[in-house]
């Protein structure tokens, strides 16, 4: 088998097909959820709901991650809190601010942007891999997570872990032939893209629903979001 052929298939037709399934699948899920209907809420709010929603995002994205010690969830389980946070931050840095990925975006969107130097992205990648291992172990031993975790949750972790690991090894030109790693990287990304609409990794879309609802509800009740 010629790895170059596999690679061009994985980053060519398969990637495009996967992307299509990803977009169509996510759109379907969005439309289906929205289509279930939204009944009007007649409760008179105690505080401004717009402000509540804004605060809900500000706190979730900009405040809690930087002052985690005020959260009880952090004091009770700091490693998991940090691992979860670092994983998401790392993912953002790698996918948006990494040069290689920016070029993929550029080929899809038609425009690019300034990226971070490779060593910085590289450190984030390493940290993200460690964070994933920590989250993996936690899922194995935490009694609540044991109860909540089924095949789908393990596959979620696996499907994100493989592209992450192969990407990291690739940039360091370690162990395997470059084409082999690149092929596996692309194949696993394709699988991941196809998998997302069928899994809870899709939470990045529904986050904007639940977080808005959170801000709105808490404002309605007159409580800080």
């Amino acid at each position, binding site marked *: 088998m010629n790895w170059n052929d596999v690679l061009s298939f994985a980053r060519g037709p398969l990637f495009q097909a996967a992307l299509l399934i990803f977009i169509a699948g996510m759109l379907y*899920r969005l439309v*289906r*959820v*929205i*289509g*279930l*209907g*939204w*009944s009007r*809420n*007649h*409760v*008179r709010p*105690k*505080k401004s709901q717009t402000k509540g929603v804004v605060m*809900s995002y500000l706190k*979730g994205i900009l405040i809690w991650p930087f002052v985690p010690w005020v*959260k*009880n*969830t952090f004091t*009770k*389980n700091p490693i998991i809190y940090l691992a*979860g946070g670092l994983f998401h931050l790392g993912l953002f840095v790698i996918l948006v601010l990494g040069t290689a990925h920016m070029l993929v975006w550029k080929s899809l969107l038609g425009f690019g942007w300034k990226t971070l130097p490779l060593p910085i992205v590289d450190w984030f990648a390493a940290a993200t891999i460690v964070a994933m291992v920590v989250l993996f172990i936690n899922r194995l031993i*935490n*009694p*609540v*997570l*044991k*109860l*909540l*975790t*089924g*095949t789908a*949750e393990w596959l979620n972790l696996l499907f994100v872990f493989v592209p992450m690991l192969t990407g990291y090894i690739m940039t360091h030109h370690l162990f395997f032939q470059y084409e082999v790693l690149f092929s596996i990287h692309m194949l696993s990304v394709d699988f991941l893209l196809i998998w997302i609409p*069928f899994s*809870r990794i*899709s*939470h990045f879309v*529904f*986050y904007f*629903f*639940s*977080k808005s*609802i*959170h*801000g709105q*509800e808490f404002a*309605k*009740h*007159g*409580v*800080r*979001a």
Partner: protein
Amino acid sequence: MIATQQAINMFVQETGGWAASQLEACTRCGMCAEACHFYQSSANPEYAPVWKLEILKRAYEQRFTLVGKFKTAIGIDKKITDQDVAHWSELNYYACTVCNKCAMVCPMGIDLGTLLHTVRSGLAAAGMVPEDLETAVMKQVIEGSPLGMTASVWDSRLEWVADEWEVDIPRDVKGADTLVVFTSIEVMKFPTNVAAIAKILNAAGEKWTVSSSAREVVNFGFYEGDQEHEKLFMRRLFDGAKELGVKRIVVTECGHAYDALRFHAPNLLSEANDYEIVHITGVMADLVKSGRIKLQEGFYDNVGTLTLHDACKIQRKGGYIQEPRDILNIIAPKSFKEMTPNQEEAICCGGGGGVIAIKAADPIRYDVFTLKIDQVNKIGANMVTMTCSNCRLQFTDCMDHFKLDWKITGLAQMVADAMVE
């Protein structure tokens, strides 16, 4: 199986975009477990709020999602059975006070409390409400009160309170501004609260009244989650309010009743928005602020250490977070000390959500209270005040059970005693 199908139908009926988008947002990270006092005190993973929701999530997935349908078809996901419904009935009614603390920690911001209420609606539709709770509900349907406060009992109790504490309680006054609705817990078990609230409103010159038809603010239908019962008990109040032509309804020291009337009634009965619905804590704070009642500064500074227990439905879900503190900072500036965590992050008493009405849940309820004991002991408080009679019932019961000698009181009572005539 018919009962189970009724539960599933109710889950499906209640799941619009609002609930579905949140069920979809859950990443199954399990963080909500750390917030739950039932999980904290027992370490039982099944008490994780997300797991209490599992039955609703399964009903939703199996009915609405392709993945869910596929998984059920090939047997990975099992259909909801009678045993499941019975099991989740215990999880939800015995080990959840619907205190909504889980919603505070969810990284996705999911409003778990409301979804947990939906779970109860399904369980109630299946007739799987614990017997003790159901008995209390039926008692409220028939007698007008779960604590047996019939019209004649109410009549004689109020007469006795008015007599004993020498306070005027205006009854069925047409054209009054404010209708005050007490809980049977106060009337039957904490009558000093009734006298205190009457004293405060009289001193402020408020044009208020109680109603003999709208005499019970407690809504046990709200505990079980049966919408028809919820509406029946709410309608009794609104009918009474309409009869007297009042503008606002004051809920006394009762947590779930305030939550039900202020935040659920408008979506169940259109007449709910004809009235301003406030909690007595807000009324007292307003009266103090506007100078209509005067409190003696530092009145409670010689009682040792005093702390405030935040009620889930009045503080975290009701928004009256600053009001009781403003009052305590006047009447007990030196002796008042906060527990940690407090305010909207406070730990629930463990008796709410109907839990205290279920005998079989007693061991769980006492376990939860040990968290409260730790909190109070940490600051060495010997007096605990609160704005919810259901919490107060849990506290007084636990004083007996754990042989503790803290003084337990309601905020209204403290305010009434500290008033300058």
